[in-house]
């Protein structure tokens, strides 16, 4: 009996510890559940690069979530420290391709080149990966010579995409991008334009 009791207690403690560690490791925030919606986007016919820059600016200082697509505008990451390899942690912020999709105001239907407004709290990632954008996938997107890129065009590699926000005198670009969990979403100086792993991508159909 004494031996069985010790075994029971040992097993209880071990299983309890493993369960606590295991469950706590499955990090999950309630940001998406508490704040985001899945409403229909609003089709619109007049879209400008400036307007898209404004959409992008409202994501500055917010978080990053791989596979994410919903954020607020309070200038902080409301779900910091998400595990970087899990797209289902319910955290705040977009990832790089979801951010570009939402800022470029595209359709979830790749054959549709129209413009659609997605609110900040509308959870949507869109159908494109960074590699898809790089290849010019989808009716709205075309590849373009990097030297011809202007504001709100994008530079995409097979793993990342960021949009050109402004040019610097030294030949670098200010890129607005969802960079990663440790970085969040913001504007940084980058040298993607000259980097051979990056290609130029343009969303077509701007009104101005």
């Amino acid at each position: 009996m004494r031996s069985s009791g010790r075994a029971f207690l040992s097993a209880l403690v071990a299983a309890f510890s493993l369960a606590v560690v295991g469950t706590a490791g499955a990090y999950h925030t309630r940001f998406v559940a508490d704040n985001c919606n899945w409403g229909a986007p609003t089709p619109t016919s007049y879209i400008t690069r400036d307007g898209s820059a404004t959409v992008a600016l409202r994501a500055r200082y917010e978080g990053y979530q791989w596979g994410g697509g919903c954020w607020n505008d309070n200038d902080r990451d409301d779900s910091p420290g998400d595990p970087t390899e899990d797209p289902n942690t319910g955290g705040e912020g977009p990832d790089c391709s979801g951010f570009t999709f939402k800022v470029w105001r595209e359709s979830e239907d790749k054959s549709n080149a129209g413009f659609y407004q997605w609110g900040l709290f509308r959870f949507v990632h869109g159908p494109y990966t960074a590699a898809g954008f790089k290849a010019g996938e989808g009716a709205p997107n075309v590849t373009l010579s990097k030297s011809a890129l202007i504001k709100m065009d994008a530079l995409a590699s097979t793993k990342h995409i960021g949009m050109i926000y402004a040019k610097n005198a030294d030949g670098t670009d200010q890129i607005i991008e969802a960079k990663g969990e440790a970085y969040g979403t913001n504007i940084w100086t980058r040298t993607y334009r000259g980097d051979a792993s990056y290609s130029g991508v343009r969303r077509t159909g701007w009104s101005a």
Partner: protein
Amino acid sequence: MKHTPVSILARRRLAISAGLLAGALSGTALALAATLALPVTATAERSLPTAGLLLDATHLPPLLTTPGEDVTLRYDIHCVPAQESLGSGSELCSGRGSVFVRAGDTGPFTELQLRVDPAAEEGRYAAHVPGEIARSRWGFTYYAVLSAGPGGATVRLPEAGADAPQRSLPMDRAVDVRLGTHVFGAVHHAHARVAQAPWGDGPADVGLEGGRAVPPVGGSSFDVDASGTVHVLDHVHRRLLRWQHGTQVPQSVPLAIAGTLADVSIARDGTTYVLEGARAGQGPLLRAFDDEGKALGAAEFTERTVSQVRLGADGPIVLQQPSGQWVPVTVGRGPQPDAVAVAEGIPGRSLPGGGEVVVLRRGNEVRVAITTAGRVLRSWRVASATPLGEVQLAEPLGTRLVLVVRLYTDTRDEFRVLVLGPAGLEASASLDSADWAESAPLSRFRLVGSSLYQLGSTPTGLFVDRFDLEVTS
């Protein structure tokens, strides 16, 4: 009851199973309760910026002009549109503003109202600078006051306005250099590999950000001091790796940094300056550490983006955006970050030996000048038939200037090292871009004496190579 060994084992198994089940259930319940109770995700603040609020402004300053050049100053202004749902109402913010401009750097400013250029896809708010100001032999200085919408906030660009205006200088006697079409693949090899480390998490490895979600990022930046010691910022492991001259194994110095891409510069007294970019909820920071990695203080930037920290004549200087100005930074010793002296911002990078170097890449041309007291001493115009990317380095070497610029096509890129002399191009070499992993944007080259150092990376690791330029100062 007499128990056989088998029955004892069976009972113990039963007890273990019961314990495992009870422990797992209670542990899971507790962990879930704790997870739900943790303030990991605070309820989002749904308050959004006021309509008309000015969010940001951008401007590419024409830092160097050529004789007779026409100058139009262009800005972009971004604000929250009148209606909350972007695109459903006013797509464009009703920005407005003026540029205050004058010839030289003294006297009253003339106000020029910014007008919307409907044909422009970027830089939509524009003001043409009158010829008598744009073509002044002393150049011109200016700043903008921008606002958005009725009752919207007003900002100055640069932030210090008339106290530290933008400055444009004339290149009256620039030396022309024409590069033609770049031939890729004819790269020079280094004279020595002075530091190398594999990617990894060991004491002599350099950390690599990665995974399915992000491209490889690692080995933020580096510097080389006068003794030849190579300092590599291993931001992933929050440390500095030092290779003393001739050694193979680096010394590791822990640093209390954020662990994101950052630039680094080492002062003569051994102080390590680490420049970190913005993160969620926080602007850029310059941190200072002593030779052993002890934190000395920090300075916080009010402008949104920073890209380089270097040592100027009087200490660390940082290039920030959107002003595009270099600002001197004093890192305090208190618990709170110091502010940055924006009123001392200048367009050129001040040099330890005096004077400044000013760089402007404009299309497929790089303009570069050595200036002092607001006058151009020497200048060059480098034109290329192959697109020019960023200027990684522009350092005086006696009467010469060493320029490292990236050349690119849509599928290839290389760096080109140019030694520019009083009469033109004196030497040139192509270098492999060697940028498999991303580093801080302008961190790939350093010039010490007449030795050029390059920070490079491959899928297996990071290295620092030395190229001897075979020119003397």
